[in-house]
């Protein structure tokens, strides 16, 4: 330990004030602080001991919570691939291997373009420390991408999202919209051909799919019932045995890399809730809002999609992933406890509304969260205004 420390200390010299590489001081500091928690101590007056958590550990918790869904996502990419091209994998390792080959490059591209290029550039120009926020965004961005996404698009989206949605606002903790969602929304609107769900989201490599392969996501199938008029559940079952409710829950279905398995996402949710890093209020209220809205639509029941059992809404598409990992982003969510309930409920309601009532978008969660990101400050504003009013009223009584 001491040995490594010495190396770091030596390497540090040119980066210090007056050193040759002073400009890159914050870059160095990033690496330094990743290796070692610095020896800085508490101030003269005030708190003399500090809580053991810091932002890095905080963010790391989110990453850990993402891991089950990510690993499953890699496996699923391989699974869908073999199913689509009609080959039989020699072992489950083959499935993983396909997934890794596809997913890891996406992650690398995200980090290289988002973190190493954009973020570092801003660090050097604006002389602020690198923030840990991108550690999480860098994993989240690949997880909301379909496995078929071209790498150049991932690169552009990462640069766009980091620049416009984060650095323009001053960096981690200052942004108004969820960075990963901005990346996805950017692609969604900039290059709708690849991501809007018109095309198959199953990674095929250079192969052509087997006959009768459709690769349609359950969400797309559900939306199609608007035209066919079939019952959603029956239509899903007819498509493939894989689209049973249980399987939708386990997640061996086509979809964006990280969002298919509700089971794995719930494991992540558990981690976030136990650690208190993610707000359980938001998660519960998103699910609740979606379920409630689905019930309302059931009651209307004007078309088969409206009549879809509410629980299906919770397991298809990205709702679970969004609710657990995106909506709970502490920076962009509502910041008051009362506000969190409203924020979550609205996301749930809007998601189902967009899905069912807006034929332009098969998936609603992404836009619902972005929309509520925009309105979270307003929700907070009114919650805080109520607090102020209480105080004022008390004073005049």
């Amino acid at each position: 330990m001491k040995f490594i420390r010495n190396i770091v200390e030596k390497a540090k010299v040119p980066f210090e004030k007056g050193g040759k590489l002073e400009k890159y001081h914050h870059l160095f500091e990033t690496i330094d602080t990743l290796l070692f928690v610095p020896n800085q101590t508490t101030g003269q007056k005030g708190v003399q001991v500090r809580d053991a958590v810091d932002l890095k550990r905080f963010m790391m918790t989110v990453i850990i919570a993402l891991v089950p869904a990510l690993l499953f996502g890699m496996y699923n990419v391989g699974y869908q691939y073999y199913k689509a091209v009609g080959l039989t994998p020699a072992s489950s390792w083959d499935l993983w291997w396909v997934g890794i080959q596809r997913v890891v490059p996406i992650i690398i591209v995200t980090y290289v373009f988002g973190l190493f290029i954009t973020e570092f550039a801003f660090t050097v120009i604006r002389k602020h420390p690198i923030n840990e926020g991108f550690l999480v965004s860098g994993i989240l961005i690949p997880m909301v991408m379909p496995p078929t996404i071209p790498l150049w698009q991932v690169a552009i989206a990462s640069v766009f999202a980091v620049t416009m949605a984060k650095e323009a606002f001053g960096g981690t903790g200052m942004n108004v919209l969820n960075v990963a969602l901005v990346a996805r929304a950017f692609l969604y609107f900039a290059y709708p051909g690849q991501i809007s769900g018109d095309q198959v989201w199953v990674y095929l490599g250079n192969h052509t799919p087997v006959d009768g392969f459709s690769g349609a996501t359950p969400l797309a199938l559900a939306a199609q019932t608007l035209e066919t008029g079939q019952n959603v559940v029956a239509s899903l079952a007819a498509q493939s045995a894989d689209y049973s409710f249980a399987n939708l829950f386990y997640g061996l279905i086509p979809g964006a890399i990280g969002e298919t398995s509700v089971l794995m996402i719930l494991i992540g949710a558990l981690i976030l809730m136990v650690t208190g890093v993610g707000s359980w209020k938001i998660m519960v209220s998103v699910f609740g809002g979606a379920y409630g809205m689905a019930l309302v639509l059931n009651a209307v029941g004007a078309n088969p999609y409206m009549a879809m059992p509410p629980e299906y809404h919770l397991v298809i598409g990205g709702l679970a992933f969004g609710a657990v990992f995106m909506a709970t982003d502490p920076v962009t969510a509502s910041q008051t406890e009362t506000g969190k309930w409203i924020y979550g409920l609205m996301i749930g309601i809007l998601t189902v509304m967009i899905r069912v009532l807006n034929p332009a978008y098969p998936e609603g969660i992404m836009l619902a969260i972005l929309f509520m990101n925009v309105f979270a400050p307003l929700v907070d504003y009114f919650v805080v205004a109520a607090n102020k009013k209480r105080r004022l009223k008390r004073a005049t009584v």
Partner: protein
Amino acid sequence: MELFNLGIKSIFIDNMIFAYFLGMCSFLAVSKKVSTAIGLGAAVVFVLGITVPVDWLVQEYILKEGALSWISPQFAEMNLEFLQFIMFIAIIAAMVQLVEMIIEKFSPALYGSLGIFLPLIAVNCAILGASLFMVQRDYTLAEASVYGVGSGLGWMFAIVALAAVREKLKYSNVPDGLKGLGITMIITGLMGIAFKSFIGIAI
């Protein structure tokens, strides 16, 4: 139902700000505080709600080709459409004056905070824009009224949300070159992405 649909559409989808960039000047200038934004928004809703139907009447019974035939068939050939811009802007200016007087009378506090911005409404492109779009789209009187109020609400919605975001941004470390207008443009753009969720909703 049709009207309801049009209302929703004019608030969320054909949003004055995000779809047409209208009323940007005051949108950017008066969005620093939520309370003022609400006041200005309400004033815009009011002015739009009145001027669009009034402009509709003017268009229908005075300006349009053959519109004057209600006076006498002789006038059927008359086409006063070239007076459209000037008539509309005059009506808007008059309405703004009216709103100004009303606010001054009933809410001096709001008048105090909005005072300098009220004349801005006259040159708020959203107002004139809504009237021109109304003509372009050949709305009926009922549609024009709904459209006027809807566009106003959409505009208000946008400016209030923007104001809340900007209040939050007070604490952010925005790059110097982006402070003020720049970051507001970016927020507006990003908000536009979020507003897109409503495109295509038909109830």
